[in-house]
């Protein structure tokens, strides 16, 4: 977390009519930081962005930029600029007029506006398109115009509302890096709403995962990815396979009893990424989350039996194999459940196999779902 909060969201609650959307949400954003608000639809991420922009007002809580309280300030007095998902370009204006609108508002003279617009057009790779009507542009070009219009006013905070979701996959890859590079170079504080996990990972300094109007976890991308704070975050960040285990816990290790579909294991706590969400002592039912790509396949007869100390072995049978490229993708039946596991070697359907899950890629949580929230 940044030492000095530039944008401070302090216990903000927002409701639509009688439906609460954000519950006393607090978040501090540092100057020059790019924070991604990540979550599935309906989690409140766009509501939070619109509240920051001033299009919605919180029922309680405060918003501050530096020392300035902006909770009740009109949207046009907040010194922010937003890039809308729909781009919201004005169809009755040319590209240059769209970008220059905010400059004209600031009473710059015509020559200064033209110079600044030309600079932005060149920077965004739109040189020569200034007189074009915005309706005559491609999706990627419109997106750049929307970005240019926002950057033209030198906002203190740039708000990005899923700005890439209307672009096709190939352009999206490049625009991600362009926006990130621009934001770094100009040193703008940015808040980026997205439901695309990879987009958030690639672009953000810090990811904030929202779940039903609350922050599920906030932290740098690699921490969110490797140390999810809750089953929700683990599942959301792609560790969407899970098995239930019975385990004895002590101070140093998690002792997993052998079950119908898994071998016994004794895993050291310091290998487990989510060890601090586990209770200290006793016998518990745990739920283990893992990513398909973190698992490896071992032929059943090669698998070491007995106390594994670095990995958990799930036993099952290959149902089907396909080759998506690079690795073989196996559909493996383990107990009642089917998992997709990639492996460099091909195992034939019907083979008995063991799925090896290294402890460092195994996210263990108490099975009842209660976890201590952990901040970033």
């Amino acid at each position: 977390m940044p030492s000095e909060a530039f944008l401070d969201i302090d216990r903000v609650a927002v409701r639509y009519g009688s439906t609460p959307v954000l519950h006393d949400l607090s978040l501090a954003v540092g100057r020059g930081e790019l924070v991604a608000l990540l979550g599935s639809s309906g989690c409140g991420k766009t509501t939070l962005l619109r509240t920051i922009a001033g299009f919605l007002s919180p029922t309680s809580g405060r918003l501050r930029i530096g020392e300035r309280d902006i909770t009740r300030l009109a949207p046009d007095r907040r010194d922010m600029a937003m890039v809308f998902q729909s781009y919201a370009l004005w169809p009755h204006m040319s590209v240059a007029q769209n970008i220059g609108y905010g400059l004209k508002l600031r009473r710059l003279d015509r020559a200064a506006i033209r110079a600044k617009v030309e600079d932005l057009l060149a920077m965004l790779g739109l040189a020569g398109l200034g007189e074009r009507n915005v309706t005559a542009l491609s999706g990627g070009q419109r997106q750049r115009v929307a970005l240019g219009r926002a950057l033209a006013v030198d906002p203190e905070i740039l708000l990005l509302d899923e700005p890439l979701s209307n672009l096709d996959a190939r352009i999206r890859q490049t625009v991600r890096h362009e926006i990130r590079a621009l934001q770094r170079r100009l040193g703008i504080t940015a808040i980026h709403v997205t439901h695309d996990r990879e987009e958030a990972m690639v672009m953000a300094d810090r990811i904030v995962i929202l779940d039903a109007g609350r922050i599920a976890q906030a932290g740098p991308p690699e921490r969110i990815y490797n140390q999810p704070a809750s089953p929700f975050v683990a599942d959301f960040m792609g560790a969407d396979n899970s098995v239930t285990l019975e385990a004895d816990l002590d101070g140093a290790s998690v002792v997993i009893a052998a079950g119908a579909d898994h071998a016994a294991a004794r895993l050291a706590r310091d290998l487990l990424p989510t060890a601090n969400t586990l209770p200290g002592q006793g016998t518990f039912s745990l739920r283990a989350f893992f990513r398909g790509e973190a698992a490896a396949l071992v032929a059943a007869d090669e698998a070491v039996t007995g106390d594994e100390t670095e990995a958990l072995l799930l036993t099952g049978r290959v149902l089907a194999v396909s080759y998506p490229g690079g690795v073989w993708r196996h559909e493996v039946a383990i107990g009642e459940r089917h998992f997709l596991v990639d492996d460099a070697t091909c195992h034939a359907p019907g083979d008995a196999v063991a799925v090896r899950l290294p402890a460092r890629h195994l996210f263990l949580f108490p099975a009842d779902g209660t976890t201590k929230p952990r901040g970033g």
Partner: protein
Amino acid sequence: MGRWLVRGLCLGLLAFVVFGPLANMVLWAFTERWYFPHALPIEYGFSFWGRVFAPRGGAIESLVNSAVIAVGTVAMSLALAVPAGYALARLRLPFRSLILLAFLLPQAFPNLPVYINIARIFYGFGLNGTYLGVVLVHTSHGLVYAVWIATAAFASVEHELEEAARNIGAGAMHTFWTITLPLAAPGLMASAIFVFLESLDEFTGTYFVGAPDVQTLPLLLYSASAGGNYQIASITALILLVPSIAFMLVVERFLRADVLAKVGR
């Protein structure tokens, strides 16, 4: 073969119903002499055009009156419809649909009793026989189109387009003038044209409130045809037809389908 014959007959009948009266009117406008049992005029000419446009014919005066009143009606309707339409489209008003329906009221009742009563009331204010009186009557009649279409025009302007302006520093008023109004302009233009034509065409209200001091084209048309002078009536009707056709061409350009789809919502 039989099917084609039926289709051809139906189309021909339809064409006759639509264009028959128009053709008859055009013929009468250029007729010097035409009486039974002749199927077509006996003699063609322009002498009645001269009579209509002669100073004594009153056509020029009526035309000017009609135009002045129509322009005044458009101005007054828009002055009311722009704020009303914006409010109805953007603000969360209670009884919104009731308000929209209220503008329909002058049309919902038979015209004659309504206008007789208006004339009675206007008499008290000394508005009878004045331009203002006629403009007011026309506005009450045209306001339903103006407000309904203006509401649809404002509703079809994406809210995000306004937010995008607010967001980079434009105040509410500036946003309205630079974003909302220009984007709603085609719809407002269409409503203005509707109101203009309604006013140009209006007879009953003008008759009760304006006549005999304020003479408009429809009143001239009425007295000409009531007097059995079909030539003058046809020529006047032709003059009235010109703006209608121009309107069709213009409205097709200005009124987009997405605006029309929102009328009355």
